[in-house]
């Protein structure tokens, strides 16, 4: 088994063995789903229509935005990345393996949410499973690559947490996870367009949950997510640093290019 494959297997094991990652990957999102399902279905009966994609996105964001940046920053600050470097671990492995690990863990959590949502709360099952799976992967990869990019760019754990929360909290409030996008004021809808979660919900609604695709730009959310993955990965490779001494404002500004696909979608 090559170093990359062993690293990948180790990363999968760590996602369960590490208590913090276990909490963020499974316990927190599934606990939140069970709790929200109990009362939201009573407050808002229409919640069952968006429950499964909404709670899957919540699980994705927990496993990516709330844990990936801090993992990268901690490894850099503790000199772990330097140990990796002098032993020939390539930067590409340190960027792609956590992303793949997140896909694996969020896929498992999403299966639990999908089955549990349908059986426990009568959540609406996807109408088009192929689109559902595709959009799940696009959403997970977008958030995971964004989490890695935040970890690479942030100068400290505190900065990383702030940046991640700047995406996470608006996503929960404006992303359409718990409240349908139609109920969100139009001005905030523009802000929502900059959020990967909102783009993913639009994609789920248009292609996977039986909603009607909205005209010639119906595929735009999928394009935005795909472009975002590519941009995030490119920026991560360009900006990757092995130790804390090689930071700089210029790289933080360059990282703002990650907003480009979302800005294009707003203009269109």
């Amino acid at each position: 088994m090559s170093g990359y494959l062993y690293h990948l297997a180790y990363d999968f094991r760590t996602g369960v063995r590490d208590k913090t990652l276990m909490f963020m990957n499974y316990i927190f999102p599934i606990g939140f789903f069970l709790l929200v399902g109990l009362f939201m279905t009573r407050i808002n009966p229409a919640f069952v229509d968006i429950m499964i994609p909404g709670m899957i996105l919540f699980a994705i964001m927990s496993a990516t935005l709330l844990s990936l940046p801090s993992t990268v920053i901690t490894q850099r600050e503790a000199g772990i990345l330097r140990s990796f470097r002098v032993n020939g671990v390539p930067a590409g492995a340190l960027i792609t393996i956590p992303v793949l690990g997140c896909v694996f863990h969020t896929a498992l959590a999403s299966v639990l949410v999908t089955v549990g949502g349908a059986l426990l709360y009568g959540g609406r099952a996807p109408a088009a499973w192929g689109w559902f799976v595709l959009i799940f992967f696009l959403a997970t990869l977008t958030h995971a690559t964004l989490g890695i990019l935040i970890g690479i760019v942030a100068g400290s754990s505190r900065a990383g947490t702030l940046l991640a929360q700047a995406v996470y909290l608006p996503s929960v409030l404006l992303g359409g996870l718990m409240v349908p996008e139609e109920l969100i004021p139009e001005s905030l809808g523009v802000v929502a367009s900059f959020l990967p979660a909102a783009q993913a919900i639009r994609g789920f609604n248009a292609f996977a949950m039986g909603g009607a695709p909205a005209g010639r730009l119906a595929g735009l959310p999928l394009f935005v997510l795909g472009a975002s993955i590519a941009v995030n990965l490119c920026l991560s490779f360009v900006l990757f640093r092995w130790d804390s001494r090689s930071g700089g404002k210029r790289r933080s500004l360059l990282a703002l290019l990650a907003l480009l696909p979302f800005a294009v979608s707003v203009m269109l």
Partner: protein
Amino acid sequence: MTTTDCALEVRELRKRYGPTVAVDGLSFSVPGGTIFGLLGPNGAGKTTTLECIEGLRSPDGGDIRVLGIDPVAHPRRLWNAIGVQLQSSGLPDTMTGREALQFFCRYHGQAPDPRILERFGLADKAGDQYGNLSVGQKRRLSLAIAVAHGPRVLFLDEPTAGLDVESRLELHALMGELRDEGKTIILATHDMAEAEKLCDRIAIIIQGRLAVSGTPGQITAAGDKRTRISVSSTGGSVVAEPPELPHAVLVSVKDGYARYQSENPGEAVTRLLRFLKERDDELEDLRVERPSLEERFMEITRRNGS
């Protein structure tokens, strides 16, 4: 490579961080199969030098060859040929010792030797997570990882810092064994006793420049030539009326000892013994000490204004 070949050659190495010159035209070479000590006060440029040699930083000028490999042009080739224990490094807390060896050896394209953990006294800790190991065990694991892929040159940056006496002696013994196996060790340390005990050759760096290099004996001998003589007697005559000795200066009389400094210790000791015999007194303790490497180091750093 035979043990007499050059394992490392550094010529006119230069590195700056903005306006600060970290390394300023440093040159030295290390023969194979030896332990080479890189000494210097804090901020002298040791770690920057090592990082340039290890391919972690690009030098601004000069030439480096490790086993003939240019670290700038071929870092991956270099990392497969050397083992590195960094001063500030670690492993993920949840990684076990066994996993760490597998992990790094596979990246080096090799299967790990299953006996390596046993050799480094970690066989019973192989399944323990890194975060649960003691400081000494972490250092030993780090050294085990550095040698697991069979490198010919090892770079150890402050390997015994913060260790208790027992752990330090264990690591010293391991380093000695590795040298005896023909490995070349480049050791950066602040511990002069460690350097004096382990190193075949030493280079002292001050303000990014080579201040002095040679064997520990050569470096010590080149400094203050005065030997310290401490003597005590059962009758106390040397303390009550310390004799005047040729080529020796009485430094202090304290705690039952008369202490001298002499450039001719043989003559001074002969006179001391004669003095005791004339007074019908008996020698209780006699210590003849050359200046230590630490004292020589302090002398060099003071002279160089560091």
